[in-house]
């Protein structure tokens, strides 16, 4: 054999036995080695601006890009120092003084100072931004008046910068969960100077969130954003606690189809999925329980009924729809992840609050109500459309309820499915009749679910409003005694459910898949997992 040939042969053989030739290394294996987390995130984010973030994917990504005054403990989410190194609380529980750490910096190198927070909060509260979550800031004195346009003088709002590193916030009323509230995206600081460099700061969609322009102050910085493909975040060198951050990058994959996401996981493309098809839960539980997680979750699924629509303006029809849903069958037979039938919008698990009796499943009463409304047996009732975002799990629920309404009430419902971004736009514009949706608690208090249905809430979208409901929530917020407060909230919830602008379906659990190499991903009620504390163990 000629020497040249021999050399070639040896080269080929050694190349092919080297790791990576016979069996290609998967993204997960490579990620484990390089500390790159591959994360399925469900729907594609519409924007990466924390102030207008409303869906879980947007909140998830912005939580890695920004850091608020306080951060969350990875185990139980109790408030820990973030940009604020420490804080004082006055004895009347109304005045909070935050002392900002001097080494907190934006990803462009500028320091994060007290006025950054003031400018950011001003932005959230400015009516032209139309931030859905602006209502979260109402606990601050004068914030509500500013947001509703009663005053355009931000000095009236109870937030002041004592100096560059000291921030004082005066509350409207004592709020036991105020520090937890501060971790919500609506409270996060944004780089106003950067935003203004790219256009109008007080309206939506000015484009400052594009890669290359984006500036944040979180543990990670935006590197790449390809819509419907992936979002790449890299560890931020300017983050004050960068030494503690162990992941070098996070790749978020917007895979709206739970089936496709599960396939990606199985082929080693994802460390963590956002969800799992209902039909596959049992198979995973049986075959690879180590990969399956069913975490407790403060999350309720419900239908929003658009009361501005002529048919659904009729309360009797709405209540008939609510009564005709067999929640038990859906939660126990259709879903397989320990979900519970929900008769109220507040899920179980909120300490110190017992939800009211809520909406039972009573087809007979439903039929009687529909007949009372003038449509016995559903005759003469115009066709109703049910909108949901494209997902096999959502379609299953929609189809199940469609059949319940057809069987029990004789109502014809057409199912419409759209991409998540389209659903969001339709929802904001009020262009829907019935909308399948869910709500994840933002903090551990029933008001995170009940504030939604206030007539001035940016997340209401049903068109329903009730002065008595608003008044009950108003006085509950100003009631110090926990038991009395819970009673007021309970009364408000019962009142709302009786009017049925929404139809609760089930209290969810978070069912997802996770590779064994992922560490620091603890079960938390709000499904928050501060990425700064996550790492990969190959």
């Amino acid at each position, binding site marked *: 054999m000629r020497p040249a040939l021999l050399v070639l042969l040896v080269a080929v053989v050694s190349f092919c036995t080297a790791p990576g030739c016979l069996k290609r290394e998967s993204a997960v294996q490579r990620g484990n080695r390089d500390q790159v987390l591959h994360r399925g995130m469900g729907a594609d984010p519409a924007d990466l601006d924390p102030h207008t973030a409303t869906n879980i994917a947007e909140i998830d990504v912005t939580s890695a890009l920004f850091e608020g005054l306080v951060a969350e403990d990875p185990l139980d989410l109790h408030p820990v120092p973030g940009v604020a190194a420490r804080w004082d609380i006055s004895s009347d529980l109304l005045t909070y003084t935050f002392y900002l750490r001097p080494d907190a910096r934006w990803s462009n190198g500028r320091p994060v100072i007290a006025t950054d927070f003031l400018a950011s909060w001003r932005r959230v509260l400015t009516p032209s931004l139309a931030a859905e979550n602006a209502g979260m800031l109402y606990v601050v004195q004068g914030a509500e008046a500013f947001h509703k346009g009663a005053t355009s003088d931000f000095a009236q709002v109870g937030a002041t910068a004592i100096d560059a590193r000291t921030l004082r916030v005066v509350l409207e009323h004592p709020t036991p969960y105020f520090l937890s509230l501060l971790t919500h995206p609506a409270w996060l600081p944004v780089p106003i100077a950067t935003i203004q460099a790219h256009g109008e700061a007080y309206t939506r969609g000015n484009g400052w969130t594009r890669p290359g322009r984006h500036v944040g102050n979180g543990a990670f910085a935006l590197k790449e954003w390809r819509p419907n493909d992936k979002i790449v975040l890299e560890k931020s060198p300017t983050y004050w606690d960068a030494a503690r951050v162990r992941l070098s990058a996070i790749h978020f994959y917007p895979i709206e189809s739970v*089936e496709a996401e599960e396939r990606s996981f199985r082929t080693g493309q994802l460390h963590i999925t956002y969800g799992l098809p209902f039909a596959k839960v049992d198979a995973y539980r049986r075959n690879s329980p180590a990969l399956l997680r069913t975490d407790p979750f403060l999350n309720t699924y419900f239908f929003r009924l658009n009361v501005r629509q002529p048919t659904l303006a009729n309360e009797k029809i709405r209540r008939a729809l609510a009564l005709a849903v067999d929640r038990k069958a859906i939660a126990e037979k259709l879903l397989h992840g320990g979900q519970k039938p929900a008769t109220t919008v507040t899920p179980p698990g909120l300490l110190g609050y017992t939800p009211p009796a809520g909406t039972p499943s009573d087809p007979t009463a439903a039929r009687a109500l529909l007949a009372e409304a003038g449509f016995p047996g559903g005759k003469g009732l115009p066709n109703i459309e049910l909108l949901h975002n494209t997902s096999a799990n959502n379609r299953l629920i929609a*189809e*199940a309820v469609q*059949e319940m309404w057809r069987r029990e009430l004789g109502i014809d419902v057409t199912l419409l499915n759209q991409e998540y971004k389209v659903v969001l736009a339709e929802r904001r514009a009020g262009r829907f009749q019935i909308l399948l949706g869910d709500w994840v608690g933002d903090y551990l208090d029933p008001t995170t679910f009940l504030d939604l249905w206030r007539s001035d809430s940016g997340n209401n979208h049903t068109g329903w409003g009730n002065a008595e409901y608003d008044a009950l929530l108003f006085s509950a917020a100003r009631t110090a005694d926990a038991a009395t407060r819970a009673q007021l909230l309970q009364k408000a919830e019962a009142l709302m459910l009786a009017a049925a602008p929404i139809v609760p379906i089930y209290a969810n659990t978070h069912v997802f898949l996770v590779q064994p190499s992922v560490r620091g991903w603890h079960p938390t009620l709000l499904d928050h997992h501060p990425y700064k504390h996550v790492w990969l163990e190959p």
Partner: protein
Amino acid sequence: MLPAAAEKIEQGNSLWLDAWLRLRKNHLAVFGLGALIAIGLACLVGPWLSTHGYEEQNLELGAAGPSRAHWLGTDTLGRDLLVRLLTGGRVSLGVGLAATFVALTIGVVFGAVAGFFGGKLDIIMMRTVDIMYSLPFMVFVILLMVFFGRNIILLFVAIGAVEWLTMARIVRSQVMATKRMEFIEAARSLGFGRRRIIFRHILPNILGPIIVYTTLTIPGVMLLEAFLSFLGLGVQPPMSSWGVLIKDGAEKMEEYSWLLIFPGAMFSLTLFSLNFLGDGLRDALDVRSSKD
């Protein structure tokens, strides 16, 4: 005296009888024909005979394998798979036949006119076909769906409206070949009009390729409907079609294999039958094949 037998004049067989006799000898084609008739009848009357409705759910039961009550099992919502399969068959076969009919009508007329008249008209017509060919087909159908909303009638029309192109080309080339033959010359010299020559003299002579191509179009269209439903652009729930059932089944095949096996088998059987029948018809209708 002549023998009685000699008095009998040999009867010429018609094209159809000849074709039928030849087809009958092709076992696969006969099997295909039989299977198609059986499937068609089952889809037509089956759902009426069943005690279950295609939209009727039984969440208590959920997905269960074949049993005495549900011969082919049930899906995750507890709906009877047999009824959904037969109801879905109505949609799939209906789309297949209707779209093919649309394609056949447009394609034959268009191709025959272009082929017969030739010249500039032919060039213009066939370049139109070329341009339509170059349109990305799926995008076109999806656009139609988005603009006009989703309804089954539109699905027929949309698919038919793009499936006629190949038919037009085939018919045109056949017409061009046939129009130079002597019997057309004869018809011309007898003073027949163009319409009569096209429809009474040329078309019957090129029926073979047309019928063959038609039987091949039906499965193509059914696959397309399946594909559209697979993408979520086809029929709307709770209606079913074979495409919808196969899509659902494929998502759940590890857990509930019957949800994929039965619809898949039914669909494959139909496609095979159509292809066998098409093959058989091609041989049977070929006038040049020997009359053995």
